[in-house]
Every structure is written in C-alpha cells, then in structure tokens.
C-alpha cells in the first residue's frame, strides 16, 4: 500500500471516528452503564476498526457496532469470572429523599432494568431502539437469524416494561 493511500485511509478513519464517537459512546453506555467503562470500550472498538480499516471501510458503522458488542461481551465475560463486589453499610430507607432529579432516578431505573436483562436481549434492544437498526440489520450485526432477533426484542421489551413498571404497581397496590 502506498504512503499516500495509507494517509487517505487514515483520514477516512478519523473522519468516521470523530463523526460516530458520540453515538458509539452512548450505545456503549447503555450496554455497560458506566461512562468510564463506555469510554474505554469505545476506544477499544475504534482501535479494532482502525486495525481492520481496509475491511471495515466498506461498512464502517456495522463493523464498529459489531466491534463494540464484541468489546462489551469481553468485558461481561471477565466480570462473570470474578466474584461480585461486596458492599458494606446499610441501604438508605425508602422514604429518604436523596435529592436526585427525576431524570437521574429514571436513568438509574433504566440502567438497573437493562442490567437485569439477558445479554442478548440487551444487545438487541440497544441495536434496535438506540442505534435504530432494522430487524435485518440487527440480525446482520449479531450474526443471528431474524426470527431470533424478533423474539429477543419482543421478550426484552416485555421484560423491560415489567421491570420499569414494577415500582408503580407497588405504589398502586398500597
């Protein structure tokens, strides 16, 4: 490969990276629920894309989404191999006002609900409803049959709906 061609490909990559960095970061945040982890995941993703730019440049968005999922799966796999953090101290009573805004509370509830979903359902929901991919594009990124994507999306939505509605139902029950 000539130097000029390499330079032009590097420029292409950097254009793509700067344009898609915010979206990838937000997607990573929805998958990992932590901004620092999401930043590291996005960096790892873009490194992978850069190293395979020759291959990725034909469809960089799909390639980067695949790479992001792969980086997140690596992280989940590492987490599962290690014991959970043991927290000490007592949880605040339910009626204590922590002074958090509704948005923060809602975000925490969504993160909690997403983290309770099986990995595949979480991935499908983020690809379908954050990255706005069609069923067939989601199936391409996940390398799964469309039927599996449809059923996972349906189950994930129902599961998420159930988890997010649970506190309301408790209030109504009172």
């Amino acid at each position, binding site marked *: 490969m000539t130097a000029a061609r*390499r330079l032009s490909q*590097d420029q292409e*990559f*950097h254009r793509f*990276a*700067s344009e898609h*960095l*915010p979206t990838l*970061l*937000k997607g990573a*945040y*929805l998958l990992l629920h932590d*901004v*620092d*982890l*999401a*930043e*590291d995941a*996005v*960096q*790892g993703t*873009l*490194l992978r894309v*850069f*190293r395979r730019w020759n291959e990725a440049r034909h469809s960089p968005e799909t390639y980067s989404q695949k790479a992001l999922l792969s980086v997140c799966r690596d*992280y989940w796999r*590492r*987490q599962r191999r*290690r*014991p*959970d*953090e*043991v927290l000490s101290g007592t949880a605040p009573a339910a009626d204590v006002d922590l002074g958090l805004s509704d*948005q923060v509370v*809602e*975000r925490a509830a*969504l*993160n909690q609900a997403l983290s309770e979903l099986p990995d595949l359902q979480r991935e499908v*929901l*983020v690809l379908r*409803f*954050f990255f*706005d991919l069609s069923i067939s594009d989601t199936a391409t990124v996940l390398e799964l049959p469309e039927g599996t994507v449809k059923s996972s999306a*349906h189950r994930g*939505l*129902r599961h*998420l*709906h159930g988890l*997010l509605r649970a506190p309301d139902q408790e209030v109504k029950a009172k």
Partner: protein
Amino acid sequence: MNDDQLEDAVRQAFRDAVMDVEPSRELRDRVDGIRRRRFRRGAAWSRIHGRLVVATAGGLSAATVAVLAGIAAFTGATAPPAFAVVVSKGTLSITMHSVESVAAVDARLRRLHVPFVVVPMTRDCKSHFGMTYLAAGRGGPIHLHPGGVRPGRTIVLAARQIKPGVVDFGAGWTDGKVPSCVPVGHSGPGLGPFEMEKWNPKLHRYVKHWVK
C-alpha cells in the same frame, strides 16, 4: 400499552438516558492519537517500555477488575500507546511512554480510588520529597509487590523521560501531602521491602530482586 407504544417509550427512555453522555476531551485526544506506526527494521514489536506493575496485598475491589486501559495496548500497524492503566486480578499495571501522560494517568488512578499517584520527576522541582529510585523501566516491565499499603498512606510514583518512548520510575511514599513533582537524585525512605522483577536482556528473562 401495545408493542408500538412500548417501542416508542423505550426509544425515548434510551434517548433520555444518554442525553448528557458526551465524549470527554481525553477520549477525543486518545482517539485522535490513533496512528500507524512507521515500520523500523529490527524493531522489537512486543517491547513495552516503562511498565510498572504494582500489586497490593489487600487486592483491589473485585468490581474494578475490569481492564481500564487508558490507551489499550496493541500491536501491529498502529503507533505505540501513550499510556495504559490496567487493573486485573488485584494488580494495577501502569504503562507510560511519555511523561506528558502523567496528568492523564494520575486522573485515571484517582478515578480508581487506589492509593497511588504519578508525578513528574524534574530537575527544577523544589520539592524535597525522598524517593527510592527504581531505574528499572528501561526496556522491560517492573513488577512490584509492596505487601499492602497502610491506610492513609500514598505511594508516589515519579516518572522521568530518559529517551523518546522510554519512561523510568522512582517510587516513594507519604502519609501527608502528595508532592506535585519530585526532584531528580533524591533518595529517601522508599517503599520498604518489596519484590521487583527486572528484565535482563542477557539472560532473556525476568530476574527477581528484593529491595530493602
């Protein structure tokens, strides 16, 4: 709520959740720094300079065991990373190629809540902070096993650029205020007994030393 309404609600919830998640300046710099490495005949691709591994006896929080690379280490056709901070199995690993990364590495350590700080070692520094100079970062990683850090104590790692791409470290501790820099050539209390592994290019393997 039917499926369409539920889908819209989830879309909206996702949009709200990430509304103020934006790439930090640090991340943008790291991504902008992704470059191809110029091929040099005979260069050792796998060589990692100035790598310091510190294992605390108490171990680090299991939840932070994730690899948190400041710049992920990678090989192949890309440029060497400026720095990396990796926590794995209770071991904190710091890799630096340039002292310009000191602030970024230190910020990363603060976020991990570990009792380590990285400061630059400079000739014009007015601090009288005592150090044990390790001088072992040249061309290979160092592994330190300090046997636990006492509560309230901070381990100060002083970084010095000895040539382009190579950073050496000194290490010391303080129970009080952490210096913002460390002068060259001061010796001091150091870390106490610790084990160090240093790459021996003649033997082609790591050799363990006890430093007291």
